């Protein structure tokens, strides 16, 4: 049977999903990018290959999304390279056709997508800073000596969440230290942090938007039940967290690859192929574009980063 591979390479985590022709997930994996997108994808592919073992599925098309989508798209010979906003919207509307609002909080970014009748009609994404995203929560969890995984459960125990300044990560952090020192309990502080993340999100990303149910909450932070509850308290509606919510971008881009109708050869051999990137500053004008060249087995296969033709690198 034909299979479609979707890969979502984020700043923090890398997600991979293989779907069959009926959009059923037949293999999936979630692992840390660790600052090495190509290495992460190789590890990811190894896991997926093992999961597919004996399932008689042949991958005929690959889609990539996330901040490293272009690089990984070249590496895996992808037929679709799509931005993560569209990928998430497509993934979610495939699984929840009636969804009207998507909240998403990832490691470094957060976004809101408003959907009407299955079409995206509005969206917003955080701009300059990463306040209120997953990386903030995990650094604060570390400070409080609890793991991010337990964070949500602890928050649910609190009856009086502490008020924590939500506007900016730096302020939130000093507020948190202060509240801890004057004797607020850990549960209350953790619940307060969850609330702060939600307040920050709704004030920044959700500013001026209407949140019509059904609301789906996804991205890594959606696994945190404390944040989910804080969202429900704040918007007054039930918030759905899909069990595959953390894979939605990868799932969406796999669906896009399937719907594109383009089939390109893909082989798990890329795991053993050597890929290398080199970067250099183009000296031809004062723009000094940072040009990236991608090599496959020491052969140049693609390059980008140049603003003008002077910096174009010829591919033989």
């Amino acid at each position, binding site marked *: 049977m034909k299979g479609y591979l979707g890969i979502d390479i984020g700043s923090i985590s890398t997600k991979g999903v293989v779907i069959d022709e009926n959009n059923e997930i037949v293999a999936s994996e979630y692992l840390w990018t660790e600052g090495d997108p190509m290495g992460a994808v190789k590890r990811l592919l190894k896991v997926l290959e093992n999961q597919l073992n004996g399932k008689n599925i042949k991958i005929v098309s690959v889609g990539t999304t996330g901040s490293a989508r272009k690089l990984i798209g070249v590496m895996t010979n992808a037929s679709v390279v*799509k*931005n993560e*906003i569209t990928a998430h919207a497509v993934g979610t509307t495939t699984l929840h056709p009636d969804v009207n609002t998507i909240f998403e909080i990832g490691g470094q970014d957060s976004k809101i997508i408003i959907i009407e009748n299955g*079409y*995206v*009609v509005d969206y917003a994404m955080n*701009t300059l800073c990463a306040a209120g995203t997953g990386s903030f929560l995990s650094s604060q969890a570390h400070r409080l000596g609890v793991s991010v995984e337990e964070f949500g459960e602890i928050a649910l125990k609190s009856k009086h969440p502490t008020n924590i300044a939500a506007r900016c990560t730096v302020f939130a952090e000093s507020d948190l230290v202060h509240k801890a020192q004057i004797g607020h309990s850990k549960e209350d502080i953790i619940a307060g942090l969850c609330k702060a993340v939600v307040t920050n999100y709704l004030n920044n990303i959700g500013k001026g938007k209407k949140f019509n149910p059904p609301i789906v909450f996804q991205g890594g932070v959606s696994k945190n039940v404390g944040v989910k509850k804080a969202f429900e308290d704040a918007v007054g509606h039930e918030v759905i967290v899909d069990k595959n919510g953390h894979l939605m971008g990868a799932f969406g881009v796999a669906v896009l690859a399937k719907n594109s109708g383009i089939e390109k050869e893909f082989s798990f051999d890329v795991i053993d192929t050597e890929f290398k990137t080199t970067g250099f500053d183009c000296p031809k004008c004062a723009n*000094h574009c940072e040009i990236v060249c991608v090599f496959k087995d020491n052969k140049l296969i693609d390059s980008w980063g140049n603003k003008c033709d002077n910096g174009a690198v010829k591919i033989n």
Partner: protein
Amino acid sequence: MNNEIIACFPQWGSYYCAFRFLFENGFGVKYMTPPPITKNTIELGSKHSPDYVCVPFKYCLGCHIEALEKGANCLMQIYGGCRLNYYGELEEKILKDLGYNFKFFNMAEINFKSPKSILQNLKIVNPNVSIVKIAKALPATIGIIKTIDRMEDFIRQNAGFEQNENEMEDIFSEFKQKLDSTTGYKEYKKLKKEYLKKLANVKINKPKNPIRVGLVGDYYTVQEPFSNYNMEKELEKMGIEVHREMNLTNTIIKSKYKSSRKIGKKYVKFNIGATANYTVAEALKYAKNGLDGIIQVKSFGCTPELNAQTVLQNISKDYKIPILHFSFDSQTSETGIKTRLEAFYDMLSAKKK
């Protein structure tokens, strides 16, 4: 000692053509076309600017430093209804502190009610300035500005559909190059006719109902391509018809301020600073004309545009037109901008179907 005056105004879209004409033929001084903005310009500007100043200041300052290094010795700055009023004073001080020697024509210091003050200030550029000569050069200067705006409007709306990529941009560049040596009104008129025709003759494949997007934003960011990461070109490449009303023709030559206030009356009752009332009126016009989306570009910390942003959200709700907001500082990753633009395009094209 070389006493030749070499004037330079910061890089601002394609208007250097008009400024060159005015200074060489009106003021009777040499004009230096500022070097194109590069990463180096903004790095220089940021290095010597207060960190929290709005980013157009950093571009202007960087541009002035580059011009001084290349031999310009008479700089100038305009004024406006926001922090722009202080640009000149601050720039002059920073550049003097850096040890540069130059004359500075700061239009914020002119008292336009007093002919004496006007003349005094014009004499900063050239002590032997002749008002008659300036008056004679004005019709062509205004003409050049209007033609540039007209051509750019045409290119924005059509370049996304041309059969041979970059044809229009090449014609436009050629036009600007030829303008460089014009000295009179007749000569300019002839060029204008010739190149408008050339542009109109470029072959395009435009669908009947293309995606149309309108740009709004603060005066500098929306007009200077480098400062908005060449957004217009990016949109054109996606096959979008781009609209942008903010230009010199609409704000200074035809001054549509009063009509802007009137158009936007339902949404803002008072002056919200700088050109933000224009922004509101333009967005409303785009919405009423049935454009598919609006993009607001502004420099981080631009208060008038921040005022407009909230108003734009009301327009977005009332007319069901999506608006994408960008806030730029000297550093913003291009990848992030492209991601948002791509998603915006996906959204508009899915809706269109």
